[in-house]
């Protein structure tokens, strides 16, 4: 039995879990190809133009699975809420409904719902709905499989938090390994890159921003390097409560990074027309001004050119380098002044003693 999982949206956060879960139940998982320009335009043709880029790309991946990979079962979950009254964005909540209505092909859609605001729609119900259409209804086996899934997921999260690039961490985790690398740590500048995983780790959307930053001599930090507690504290810095299901990775991380002295600047990447991000970025922009942290907002859509994108990042890092240099020189000058003062004092003491 083969099920297709689109390499978009939830893939970037939950794929190790799904891999372990389905694999342990004897279901083969087929992934779609990596995002390409053609795939994006095919996906965009299905939905109205106001829809945000990640959802357009998701539709492209669904088509890719059905047409190229020979799959006729698509797994498209709806994550309604992750805690009591902490809801997701409408487009992610209605994702399977969207797929069902716009992809006019013959296939089986598996559409489990995770809704922590409802009483009987928790994780196990969600997992049950995930495999029940395939004929697996043994609740004990499902529970056992979810444990295998969590093992993979925890390995992934652990390695990503340690500083490995999350996509590298995912590959390592899928092989069942845990690797802790020693890393070169003498970067002159550190930037926090904030975006949803499905925007940041899709090389087509983020245009390999990590590689570009590495070449510029910049260390990039992401929300994956923070613990949930640190991000929760970050929310307090921004004076807000959790409202969106995926708010921690943007607002929470921003609050934590903006109060961190090691971080020289914050770079946010959002998809055009993203509802939750428009509010989160507004809050972050206003607080960045109050906390005096340099901030660059980049909005991407399917027409964004790579050259303009890179130029802005280069200009931003240039500015950060100048700022850092200026602050170092300022500190040095202060130190020199202090030293001079001390010398004068000791000199005058000496004269007093002599007299």
């Amino acid at each position, binding site marked *: 039995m083969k099920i297709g999982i689109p390499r978009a949206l939830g893939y970037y956060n939950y794929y190790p879990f799904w891999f372990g879960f389905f694999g342990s139940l004897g279901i083969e998982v087929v992934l779609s190809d990596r995002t390409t320009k053609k795939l994006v335009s095919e996906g965009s043709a299905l939905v109205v133009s106001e829809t945000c880029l990640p959802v357009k790309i998701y539709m492209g991946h669904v088509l890719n699975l059905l047409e190229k990979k020979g799959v006729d079962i698509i797994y498209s979950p709806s994550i309604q809420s992750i805690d009591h009254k902490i809801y997701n*964005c409408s*487009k992610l909540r209605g994702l399977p409904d969207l797929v069902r209505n716009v992809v006019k092909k013959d296939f089986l859609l598996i559409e489990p719902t995770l809704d922590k605001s409802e009483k009987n729609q928790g994780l196990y119900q969600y997992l049950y709905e995930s495999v029940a259409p395939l004929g697996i209804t043994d609740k004990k086996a499902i529970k056992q499989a979810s444990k295998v899934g969590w093992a993979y997921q925890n390995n992934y999260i652990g390695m990503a938090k340690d500083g490995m690039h999350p996509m590298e961490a995912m590959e390592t985790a899928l092989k069942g390994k845990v690797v802790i690398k020693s890393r070169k740590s003498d970067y002159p500048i550190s930037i926090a890159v904030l975006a949803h995983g499905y925007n940041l780790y899709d090389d087509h959307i983020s245009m390999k921003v990590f590689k570009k930053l590495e070449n510029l001599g910049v260390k990039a930090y992401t929300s994956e390097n923070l613990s949930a507690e640190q991000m929760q504290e970050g929310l307090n810095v921004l004076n807000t409560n959790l409202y969106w299901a995926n708010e921690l990775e943007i607002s929470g991380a921003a609050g934590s990074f903006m109060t961190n002295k090691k971080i020289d600047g914050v770079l946010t990447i959002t998809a055009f027309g993203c509802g939750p991000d428009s*509010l989160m970025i507004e*809050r972050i922009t206003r607080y960045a001004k109050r906390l005096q942290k340099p901030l660059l907002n980049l909005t991407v859509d399917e027409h964004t050119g790579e050259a303009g994108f890179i130029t802005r990042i280069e200009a931003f890092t240039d500015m950060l380098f100048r700022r850092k240099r200026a602050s170092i020189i300022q500190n040095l000058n202060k130190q020199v002044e202090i030293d001079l003062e001390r010398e004068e004092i000791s000199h005058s003491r000496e004269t007093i003693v002599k007299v």
Partner: protein
Amino acid sequence: MKISFPHMGNLAIGVSGAVRALGGDVVLPPYTNKRTLSLGAKYSPEAICLPYKLVLGNYIEAIEAGAEALLMIDSPGTCRLGQYSDIARIALTDLGYNNVEFINFDLYKGKLFEIYSGFKYATGNGNPLDLIYAVRIGILKIKIADKFDKLLNYYRAREIEIGSADKKYNKAIALVDKALTLKECNDAFQFGAESISGVEIDTKKQVLNVDITGEIYVVLDKFSNMEIEKELGKLGVQAHRQINLTDWIDKSLYPSILRFGETHGEKAHKLAREFIKRDVGGDTVESIGDTAFAAASKNTDGVVHLLPFTCMPEIISQNILPNVRNEKDIPVLSLVMDEYTGKAGFVTRLEAFVDLIQRRKNSKDQVGVLLS
């Protein structure tokens, strides 16, 4: 304390009525206009939806007019609406308006208690009986205004002298706004209904029926939807607004024990299940259900679906509606409203749509004649 709140259709009539009945002081911002929009857009994030920009503009104009406290609902709509007051507060603080208080009605926490404590704080009147009376006045006024709107749409599509129904309507609404007691409200309703019904109409005129549905703010707010009901009326079309404050009050404010019968939302949910299986926030399920309902009713000729630009829930319905249109055979026009929408282009699209449904109706009638 001088209290103010944003406009949304007939909301101002109801809320100011309730606050006045409690002895509070109301400062109303001018009805949403171009200045409101440009003020709001200037201090808002670029990608946020039109309602927030207008609400923020309302707040700024209210403060300029001397308001000391702003009312805001945090409705369990679970779209961006729930964060409006929070973001607006930061924006207003950065603008230097530090002395303004926000009074939030957080409907997550329990409906009756929040209304009670909110109004008590705003007006200083804690007598529960007074409060019940005030809320009754507020709700009655909103319901009367909605009924007037319905009447107006009927007479506007058929009136002989263009504009005569609107004149009567404006007088009637002003009278409702002035009323201080329940009896005065009812009298104003009697008087207004009679006066609007007195408009001279062409009884033989063949009128098209168009349902209006979509995101609640742009459907209700006459500025942001470019007075679509009036424009349709001019074209000889009777507009039926499917999303009303009356329904919203029945759905969100009344405790569920006190509710009898099926609300508009429940009806829409039932009809929409075929196309959308889960609630995704906002008015998506209502929009889809209303369209399916319009297709099922014989009198309705078409549906206009209104949504603000970048509205998250309505993008889902905009994606699903073509499917409803094909399967249920009903013309649907989706109109996206934002600050750059031009009136001329808007009216042209409405005219084209009305032409289309007129032709469709004529050909259907001909088929009916041939078959009989």
